[in-house]
């Protein structure tokens, strides 16, 4: 009803922004419109009331802690920025150590090559190559690096004569190129080099999914007894592989597994039949939702603020971010991430092949699965303190009706409290703005095609404490209306909670597709009825 009044005029009158002429006209209009007059009067009262709320004094404890921190900084004789520089310096120092280690490995490898040329040509296959080009994991690498599979030179040298290394090389050959494997930067319990890839989700179904950037002649052909062609492989989106954060590594490994599982399941399904993209299709394709009112509502819900905030809240550990930022351009802090998303979107729009791969694989999985789709997707994780673990993953893709979108899944976990997750969808509108809508609560005001005031699509993100699990199962079992199209159970598919939820879902809808990245027990369900998503229940 208010729409029939000019918002700008109303606000201008309330805020005193109108010129005298405008104000006179508006007052004349108010005199003729009782509802407008009453509304403006009430809003003026609200405004005055808010401004009359008395200020409160903060507790003294606030500044105690702040001053304590300042004193510590002063005692260290480091300014905050110097502290940050010190952190970066430590990172650089680690990078140098890695470079030195690589150099040492090259020397040792050269020695090995000499030995090799003087002894047995078969050993050549056990050498691995990597490139300096663009791999975020290649921190500290200054140029093409010929490395051994193990970072420990002695062990690596000893492996030169171990026949089982041939098996590993052979496995890898199937996926990439004869006799070539990807060198890893980090020690991983002596695993074969190619086998480190799943940790970052780049290996799927026994195949390393990287970009083959170039095939460079590496000297004389193998048949002539010279070295083999060098295939330079760039792994995508591996920034997270090099955080040096044990907490993160553990989490990544788990999520890598969950992501791979998820992706494998998704690979068996046509992208159009599953995943949240179908939700987005419904959300953004109806005429009502393309109406001016909807767009206006979008503006209220979205744009930069929410995007920044949704991202920013998961980058509380700024020092970690700053360390990473120094070496990995993919890792940004706070507000920068909005820009990052825009960059990703731009890059994505320019790359149809990548878009198709993302469409096929990114939706519904977590970032690990998405990273496996081609490395465009940026995932980042900031190791937390207090035993917690915070991460932020983004995936770019396109909704089924061609609306570009960025999916953001943020996990904030803290074993000492309840684990939490935040799911945010960010749609890129025609103006290339990021329109963020948090899952359920923010949708409460969404207009619907039916004009019911309630969204037709209900997306339920229910994080369930273990103690409440029986209740959840009861609720699931009690659902009878609608057809459960698929379920998104964002919990690690390894624990009793997941099994219990699966049992409940089996009762509700046998054979239901379930996708489960690794967060605490949570449930996202979308109900469809007669091909249309319907609002069914909340838990």
């Amino acid at each position, binding site marked *: *009803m208010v729409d029939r009044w000019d918002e*700008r005029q*109303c606000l201008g009158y309330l805020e005193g922004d109108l010129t005298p002429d405008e104000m006179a006209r508006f007052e004349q209009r108010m005199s003729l419109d009782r509802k407008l007059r009453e509304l403006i009067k009430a809003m003026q009262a*609200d405004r005055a009331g808010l401004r009359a709320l008395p200020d409160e004094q*903060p507790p003294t*404890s606030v500044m105690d802690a702040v001053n304590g921190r300042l004193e510590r900084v002063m005692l260290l004789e480091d300014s905050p920025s110097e502290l940050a520089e010190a952190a970066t310096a430590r990172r650089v120092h680690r990078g140098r150590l890695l470079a030195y280690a690589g150099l040492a490995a090259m020397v040792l490898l050269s020695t090995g090559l000499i030995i090799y040329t003087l002894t047995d040509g078969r050993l050549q296959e056990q050498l691995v190559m990597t490139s300096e080009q663009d791999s975020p994991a290649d921190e500290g690498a200054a140029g093409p690096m010929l490395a051994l599979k193990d970072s420990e030179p002695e062990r690596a040298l000893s492996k030169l004569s171990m026949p089982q290394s041939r098996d590993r090389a052979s496995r890898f050959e199937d996926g990439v190129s004869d006799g070539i494997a990807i060198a890893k930067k980090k020690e991983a319990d002596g695993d074969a080099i190619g086998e480190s890839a799943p940790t970052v989700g780049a290996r799927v179904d026994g195949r390393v999914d990287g970009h083959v950037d170039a095939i460079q002649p590496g000297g004389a052909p193998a048949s002539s007894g010279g070295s083999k062609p060098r295939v330079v492989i760039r792994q995508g989106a591996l920034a997270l592989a090099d955080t040096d954060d044990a907490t993160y590594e553990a989490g990544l490994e788990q999520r890598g597994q969950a992501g791979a599982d998820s992706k494998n399941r998704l690979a068996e399904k046509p992208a159009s039949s599953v995943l949240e993209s179908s939700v987005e299709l419904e959300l953004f394709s109806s005429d009502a939702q393309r109406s001016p009112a909807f767009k*206006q509502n979008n503006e209220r819900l979205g744009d930069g603020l929410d995007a920044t905030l949704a991202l920013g809240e998961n980058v509380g550990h700024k020092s970690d971010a700053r360390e990473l930022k120094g070496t990995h351009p993919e890792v940004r802090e706070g507000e920068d991430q909005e820009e990052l998303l825009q960059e990703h979107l731009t890059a994505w729009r320019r790359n149809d092949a990548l878009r198709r791969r993302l469409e096929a694989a990114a939706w519904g999985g977590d970032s690990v699965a998405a990273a496996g789709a081609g490395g465009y997707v940026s995932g980042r994780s900031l190791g937390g303190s207090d035993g917690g673990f915070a991460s932020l993953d983004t995936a770019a893709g396109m909704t089924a009706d061609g609306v570009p979108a960025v999916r953001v899944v943020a996990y904030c976990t803290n074993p000492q409290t309840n684990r939490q997750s935040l799911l945010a969808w960010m749609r890129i509108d025609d103006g290339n703005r990021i329109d963020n809508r948090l899952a359920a609560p923010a949708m409460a005001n969404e207009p619907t095609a039916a004009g019911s005031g309630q969204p037709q699509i209900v997306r339920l993100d229910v994080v*369930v404490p273990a103690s409440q699990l029986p209740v959840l199962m009861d*609720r699931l079992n009690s659902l009878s209306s609608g057809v459960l199209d698929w379920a998104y159970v964002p919990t690690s598919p390894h624990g009793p909670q997941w099994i219990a939820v699966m049992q409940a879902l089996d009762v509700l809808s046998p054979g239901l597709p379930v996708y489960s990245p690794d967060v605490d027990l949570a449930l996202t369900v979308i109900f469809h009825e007669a091909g249309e998503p319907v609002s069914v229940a909340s838990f």
Partner: protein
Amino acid sequence: MDVSEQELVSRVTQGDRAALGELLERYQGRVFNIALRMVHHREDAAELTQDAMLKVIEHIGEFHGRSKLSTWMIRIAMNLCISHLRKRRLRLTTSLDQGRPGGGNGDQSVALRDMIADDREPGPLDRVQRDEGLAMLREAIAQLPEDHRAILVLRDIDEMDYREIGEVLGLATGTVKSRLFRARLALRGQVQSLTQRDDNVPDGSAPNATGKGAADG
């Protein structure tokens, strides 16, 4: 930029910790009151204020003076507040006891309101609550979505101008105006709902929680 603030910032960037302490002391009350109006919980507001201050200490080297320092600080605080509210809302959705089958998303808003009400602890705010109108306003604003709440707090509590609000919230001025008016409408709707609840529903049935009714005048 305010000259004295500029001087302080200049001293801080040169490593003057005493100046940094003075800056933080100067703004703590303002930050605290913004946080308090955002989260409506004194202890949480104090914690958020403290967190914001610590972030300022940590990141003061990144402040480039493109905006007022106070605006930058409030932006940090506001981000923390909204993040806090979202986490709190997320915790609410975990509560199966508060959910009702068939309720849809609106139920979650109701749960949020209940939770906010439950969260309140007796404190200095209680002294003010004797003023029924102000108490109702506080309750109403606590039920608004974060973006509406943020813009009203910045405009009416902190009395920022449109440009400053835009800097804090990362919005264009036009968007600030549009959102501010809608926030005022939503607040009005909440006040009306609360009034009707108090007048007509003695058993405490839940009023409209979405604020959409405001637009209907």
